[in-house]
């Protein structure tokens, strides 16, 4: 079963991306990534650029509405995602708790929906 870990990060966490040296937060991420790969559960994932680089599009009454910035107006912002292959939600929650962002932001765990994908793609 595959799960997405949606990683929500604080502004301070996003700020560490500019650091030249490896700070504790980044160090924890390197270790976390390595642990997932070594445990054979890591399927994929990527960090996203900082929230300010987002652009949000809506079509309202046939007109394009373009908004600078991310969709959600919250303090913590989506900073990346991880896909894991695991036997159950319990294990996914264990991995989410180990995510360095869980201590300073939040990690949402969602099962992927292969059934819904099949309805669209087949």
């Amino acid at each position, binding site marked *: 079963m595959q799960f997405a870990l949606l990683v929500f990060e604080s502004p301070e966490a996003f700020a560490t991306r500019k650091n030249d040296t490896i700070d504790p937060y980044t160090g924890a991420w390197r*270790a976390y*990534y390595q*642990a997932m790969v070594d*445990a*054979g559960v890591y399927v994929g994932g990527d960090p996203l650029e900082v929230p300010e680089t987002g652009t949000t599009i809506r079509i309202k009454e046939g007109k394009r509405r373009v908004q600078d910035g991310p969709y959600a107006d919250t303090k913590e912002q989506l900073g990346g995602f991880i896909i894991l292959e695991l036997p159950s939600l319990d*294990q996914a929650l264990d991995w989410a708790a180990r995510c360095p962002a*869980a201590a300073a932001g939040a990690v949402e765990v969602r099962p992927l929906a292969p059934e819904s994908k099949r309805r669209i793609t087949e």
Partner: protein
Amino acid sequence: MNGSGQEDTHRTIEQIARESYGRLVAYLSSHTRDVASAEDALSDALVAALRSWPRDGLPQNPEAWLLTTARRALIDVIRHQQVVLASEPTLLLLKENSAEATLSTEFPDERLKLLFVCAHPAIDPATHTPLMLQTVLGLDAARIAQSFLVSPTTMGQRLVRAKTKIRDGGIQFEIPQERDLPQRLDAVLEAIYAAFGIGWDDMVGIDQRGRDLAEEAIWLARVLLQLMPGEAEVRGLLALMLHCEARRASRRGPDGQYIPLSEQDPKQWSLPLIEEAESHLAEAFKHGRSGRFQLEAAIQSVHAERARSGRIEWQAIVRFYEQLTRISPTLGTRTGYAAAVAEANGPEAALVILDAIHLDVVSGYQPYWAVRAHLLQQLGRTLEALQAYDRATGLAEDPAVREFLLQKRG
């Protein structure tokens, strides 16, 4: 009644609820085997108490009042369920006893039976601890879910499923026969220790939740000891938890940094808790029946000895671990054994112990990687040490532990 008087009454109700919850649920459900209905009836009674006690004053015997009121609610519930055939005798039983209970609190303490029911082999072992926390201590599913890192809905469903199984699955409210007792008691002790372990791991210095759960576990062990004073392992478990509890505050430095046991300042340990642990352990050893929890407590006792002697007798710890690995060769025991051997006999001997553990079983077990990293670093196998530190760090949940490992990694 004025505001503060009402507050007092609420606090009294809370206190009575806390102290009597398990006794009342156990007694009410021992007749019906229906734990869920007993809990519902008791919570109805508590709501009624909140309404009438502030108005009419505390009854002379609050526990008996709750029991009578809960019983009445329970009879209503059973009537509504209309499972006539099955419940007629139960109704009779409940009614028969109700007059006597109004007069005294002298109803039998059935908590021991309830503890054995909660840790029954027919119930999923993962549910033993949550079930105990709920039925004996009255914790709600949402709070239990927090501690067990599952969603509150899932935890609620698991508890409901377990209670249905108790009611419909023919699980008897009884103390197991002599023949089954050791194994069944083990399951009860395991469940209590699991609650403590969660409370222990959870503790990041500021987290009240973790501390609460550890205290609840110690309380459960005290209840169990009161009910089974002759069981050495019950005392062993209590001694083990008290030894750990004595050091709770010293696991963090002033800035919240993680401090491993061997570097803690013994002056910060709680002497009364250590003394209590020691007296339970001494009493347990008198029975002459060694067991897992007594051995684990003995290991902690050697660590506590440092407060007096200023040094750790690693050879003694290794000897206790050798016995422990024979009766309980868990991953935790083997890892702890390796760590002790490293201190007593050097890293090579310790690494042999870790290498004997199959890699598949340790892929998610953080302490194994932390010990392994430490050993490899001591042996100068730098590259492997770095990799092991990464895994230990990546598997840690506690930011303070992560920082500690990253620093050691260098």
